[in-house]
Every structure is written in structure tokens, then in C-alpha cells.
């Protein structure tokens, strides 16, 4: 049941879905952040599965680290979003075009 193909295909599929979530979604920044979280999930999932498959603890250690990093990242990201909303009064993605080249 737990073979290598399954491990990689599940995590890759999750990663691809999250990428498409960022890529195809043009409207909502919250969905983007959620897709980002899903990418973290896919990566940690991959690490855990492969650590079990390879019978090695390091993958799980890394997934724990990623979990904390993802938590910190999402908290900071949401904080930035809140600050941004306070200033602009909107979180529409199309209007975030101040950093023009």
C-alpha cells in the first residue's frame, strides 16, 4: 500500500493543485494564501511519507520545522493583510499594483 509511487504522486498532486490555485485564481488573495498553505502541506506531506518509506526520522523533524515556519508565515502574512486592509480599505488583487517597474 505504501509504495514510493503513491507517496510522490499524492504529494505532487497536492502541490500541483495548490500551484494551480495560485496560478488560476486572479481575484482573491485569501485563496492565494490558502493555496500557499497547501503547498507547505504538500511539502511536509512528502517529507513525512518519504521518512516513513525510508524509515528515517529526519523527514519528520523537517516537517515539524516546516509546520512552525508555515504557522509563523501565515500569521505574519495575515498580519500584513490586516495592515494593508486598514490602509487601503480593500484586499482586491487587481488593485495591488503600486510596485510598477
Amino acid at each position, binding site marked *: 500500500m505504501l509504495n514510493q509511487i503513491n507517496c510522490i504522486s499524492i504529494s505532487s498532486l497536492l502541490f500541483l493543485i495548490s*500551484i494551480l490555485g*495560485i*496560478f488560476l485564481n*486572479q481575484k482573491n*488573495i485569501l485563496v*492565494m494564501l490558502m493555496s500557499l498553505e497547501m503547498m507547505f502541506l504538500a511539502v511536509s506531506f512528502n517529507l513525512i511519507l518519504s521518512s516513513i518509506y525510508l524509515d528515517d526520522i529526519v523527514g519528520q523533524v523537517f516537517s515539524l520545522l516546516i509546520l512552525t515556519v508555515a504557522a509563523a508565515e501565515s500569521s505574519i502574512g495575515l498580519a500584513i493583510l490586516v495592515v494593508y486592509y486598514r490602509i487601503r480599505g480593500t484586499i482586491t*488583487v*487587481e488593485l*495591488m*499594483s*503600486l*510596485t*510598477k*517597474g
Partner: protein
Amino acid sequence: MYLLILALPLLGSLITGFGGRWLGRYGAAILSTTCVLLSTFLAILIFYEVGLSGTTCYIYLAPWIESGIFNLSWGFLFDSLTSVMLIVITVVSSLVHLYSIKYMENDPHCPRFMSYLEIFTFFMLVLVTSDNLIQMFLGWEGVGLASYLLINFWYTRLAANQSAIKALVVNRIGDFGLSLGILVIFYIFHSVEYMTIFSMVPFFTDYYLLFMGFNIHGLTLAGIFLFIGAVGKSAQLGLHTWLPDAMEGPTPVSALIHAATMVTAGVFLMVRFSPLLEYSPVVLFTLVVFGSLTAFFAAMTGVFQNDLKRVIAYSTCSQLGYMIFSCGISCYNVSMFHLTNHAFFKALLFLSAGSVIHAVSDEQDMRRMGSLLKFLPLTYSLMLVGSLALAGFPFLAGFYSKDFILELTQMSLYPNLNLSYGAFSCWLGSMSVFFTSFYSFRLIYLTFMNSTNSNRVIVNTIHESSFLMSLPLIILGIGSIFVGYLTRDFFIGLGTNFWGSSILILPQHSNFVEAEWLPVVTKWLPFHLSILGISLASFINLTPAFYFFLKFPRTLSFFTFLVNKKWYFDILYNRFLVYPSMHFGYLVSFKNLDRGFIELLGPYGLAKLMPLWSSSLSKLQTGQLTHYIFFTILGLCLFLVLVLFLHSPLFSLSSSLLGLFLILPFFV
């Protein structure tokens, strides 16, 4: 003494040039004239020691260039040839200096003029005394420079500037030939010193250069290049156009440069290189052809010129043709003899012309002169002497040299001498004798004999020039009468050993003895022709009705027009050489290449391209978050795909990859 003859004019020139402001007009004139007079006396002493006593002198001064096998030193060689040239240069130059004191009296730049005259003399002396080709080339170029400065002396005049530039540029064409000649000689002989070259020439008669698949006779190539140099300097046909235009300078300059000194440099070069030219029949043939064509062309053109100085300039050109073709028939000593005589009577003619021009308030057109005989008897008599000498009247200077040249060309009558090409020079030379005497006497008649055409104001002010201007004329007049007779025995006398080793004439080319035994009828021919010319000129001018006959036929008037316009040489050159090359220079090399393609590919094009590029690159950054994500993921995909491609053997994308990155910004 030998080096002082060079040092004196240089010193005099530098002092009058840089210190003219403090010396003043007469101070500068007296100083420079004294320097040249002193070197004239030295030249006479040298002539006695080297020429008459036969002690060739060689002076090694200092090393100049030492590089591998190329050793060059400042050296001075005084042999018979040099001593003759020294006499010619210094005598004419000092008389011209003396003459210019008075002639340039009212000119505001007198010290500058004197300095230029003197630097000219110095460079000419460097040219004739040097013992190697490079030092000779120094003098050669220096003379060209000095001629530029002198012709351009009245630098506010447009015509003077133009003709000075023309003189310099046309001379430079010849100089290019000469420098190529020097290179060829160095390539063949590995030396540029006369002594080495001339002693090695006989061993190189079968030397061939392989150039682009052609076997070229080395000596012929060297001789032809040297002759191209002589063509430029001695105003032979082809590069003669600068000489008549150089009459824009003051008259003493014309006398110095275009009568006795500068133009003789080409002939001197040919005579100096007689040991080399003798071994190359092709070069000798070229000399004959060009020399006789020049003699004939210039003599004919001189007939229908109306400018007093221009007539004399064409006569110079014509006489130089004589000198060159007499070199071509291997009579170098006759050529030198004619050069010496010609220096005297041509300087006399030019200075007399200057005297006439001075008297009639700087009018140069002969058609506006006339009946000056009554006002200027001294100038008239001297000019008559000069003209008779030029026309080869018996017992004057020109007779001894010019008629002897013609006699030598008449040797081509005898087929066993293998001189058949000499017939060319014989015919053309004899015809130019006729033209020469015709235009000389046309000049005399129009200027002195015919009734006057100038206005009353000018006629009232005509006066004979002062003593300082007449004295050089008188000396030159005496020279024109006696030099030929006095010096003919050691210049061209039978069996003379005056020239020593400075001139080489191969025994099979030497026809001096045969020339003494020509039939009397052929010997008289040049004299008859010149008398015919004189009488025709007299006939036309003394019977004014004759002009109507001359004007009547349209073909004849067209012909005179053609000759008066110098056979359209200048116009043809301008239209087919000068203007196209200027056009090329402006349109092709300047506008299309320099400011066109090269600039488009270089600074201008890059400067245009970079902002375009960078702006299109910066337009990628729209500020939209979604676009950034799009590019991030696109980049990821691209890299993944490229890794795939790069690892597959089917595609080698390294170059197209680069192109993709370059082109990509333009599509964004």
C-alpha cells in the same frame, strides 16, 4: 667648409624666421642674403675642389637609424654632380635673395619671405648633398613644404591657397612613388646608401621580384617608382598641372622654385640614379616617352597662353621634358648641362618678367602690355638674351645644351644603334624647338614691341627697376650668354673626365662620338626650326592683319581655345579624378560608412538599442501580483523544460537558448 654650406642657410633662415621681428625688414633681408652669398662662395670653392680638381668628398656626420641590417647615418657626399647642383642652387638662390630685397620692399612680411626662401635653399642643399635615399627624401619633402609656404606666401588670396595646396598634393603623389621606390631599393639591396646601391646594381640585373604571380624585374620596378617621384617634382606630363598654377606666388619664388631649383630635383634624381637606370631599358624608354611628350605638350601649350608668367612656366615644363628624355637616351651629362644652362636663362626670364610685372603695376596679362621697349630698355635687352638662349640661338647657353640633346636624339636615324625609340624624342623635341622660339618671341613682341594696350595711368608710372633688382638680372644675363660656352668642354666635351664616377653611362648606350659625325643638314635642323619660329612670330606680330586669317577658320579657333585651356587637363582631372574622389570621400566613406553603418553598429546604434531593450524589460514588471506569479511559474516551467531539452541528445539548444532570451523581451 663642406658642412658650412648647409649650415649657413639653415642658420640664416632660423634667425630671420624667429628673429625677424627684431631684425626688421632690411636686417632680415641683409642677413639672409649674406648667408646665401657666403654659401655661394663656398659652393664655388667646392666646385673647384671637387669638380675641377676631382677630389670627391664624403662626410660622415652622425648615426641616424640603426635597426638590424638597416644602418643609416647622416652623411654628405660631394661629387661632381653635387658640386654642379650646388653652384646652380646657390647662385640662383642668392641672386633671387638679392632681387627680393627690392621686389618685396613694400610687403609687410618681408622677413618671413626671406626665411622661407632660405629654408627652401637649405632643403634643396640637403637634397643634393645627401649620401643616402632617406636623407635625400628629407630634402625632397622639405622642398615640397617650402614650396607650399612660398606659393602660399600671400595667404589671404584664395587662388594662392588653392594653388599651394594643389602643388603640395600633386607633388605628394610623386613622393608616394618615390617612397615606394626607396622601399623597393631597400628590399633589393638591403641598403639605402648610394655607394652600396650603385656598386651592387650590376649584380642585380637578373633579379626578379615575384609579386602576385608576376615576375617583375627588380631594377625596372625601382626605376619606375623613382621616375614617378621625378614626374611629380619635375612636372612631367601627368602630374604637370601644379607647375603653371604655382605662379600664384611672388615672382622671385617662381624664379627660385619653378625655374632653377625645385623642378630640377626630379632631373637630379634621375641623373643621380644613372647607375641604376642604365641597367633597365624599360625605364629608359619610359623616360624618353614621358620626357618628349612633356616637352612637346608644354611647348605647344605655352604658345597660346596669355599670362606672362604662365608662358615661362610652360617653357620650364617643356625644358624639363628635354632634360628627362635626354636622361632616357642615356645622356645624363647633357641633361645636367642643360639643367645648368636652363637654370641661368630661366631664372633670368622669370626675374625679368618680375621686373616687367613690377613696372606695370602688377599686371600679368601680356595682352595688356606692349611697347615696354621704350620704358624698360635694360629689362628688354636681358629678356631678349634670355629668350634667345631659350630658343637655342647660336653661341648662347641654350644652344650648346639643347641643340646637342637634339643631335643625340637624331642618332636614332641609324638603326644599328638600337635607338629606334629615340626617333620619338627626336620628332617631338624638334617640333618643340619651333614652338619654344615661337612663344618666346611672341612674349617679346606682346610685351615689348607691339603698341601698348595698357591704360594711361599705368603707362605714366612705368619705370626701370632699381639697381638691386637689375644687378641679378645682369649677372644672370652674363651667365646666360657665357655659361654654355665656358662650361661645355668639361660638361659634355668628348672624353671629359669631369663627372668621374658620379654618372654612369654604359658603353653600349654612349653615342657621343657618333653625334659629332652627323650630317650637317641634320645638325642644322634645330637652328632652322628655331629661326622659323622666330620669323613666324615676327611675321604674325608685325603684320596685324594676319590675326584675321588666324581667326577665320572655326577649327583653328577651336584648336587655339583647346590649347589655351591647357588641353583641358585640369578640367578632365577635376571631373574624372578629383571630383569623384571627393564625392566618394563625402558620400561613401563619410556619410555612408563613418556616419552610417559603423556608427549604426557602434555607438549610435547601441545607444538607441539599450534604452529600447531596458524599457521593454522593465515593462514586464506591471505591478500586478498575478502577473508576477505567472512569470514565476512560467520561469519554473521553462527551466524544467530546458533541463529536459538539454539532456536529450536531439536538441542542442545552447545557441538558440541565448537567442530566445534576447528575443523574448521584444514580444512582451
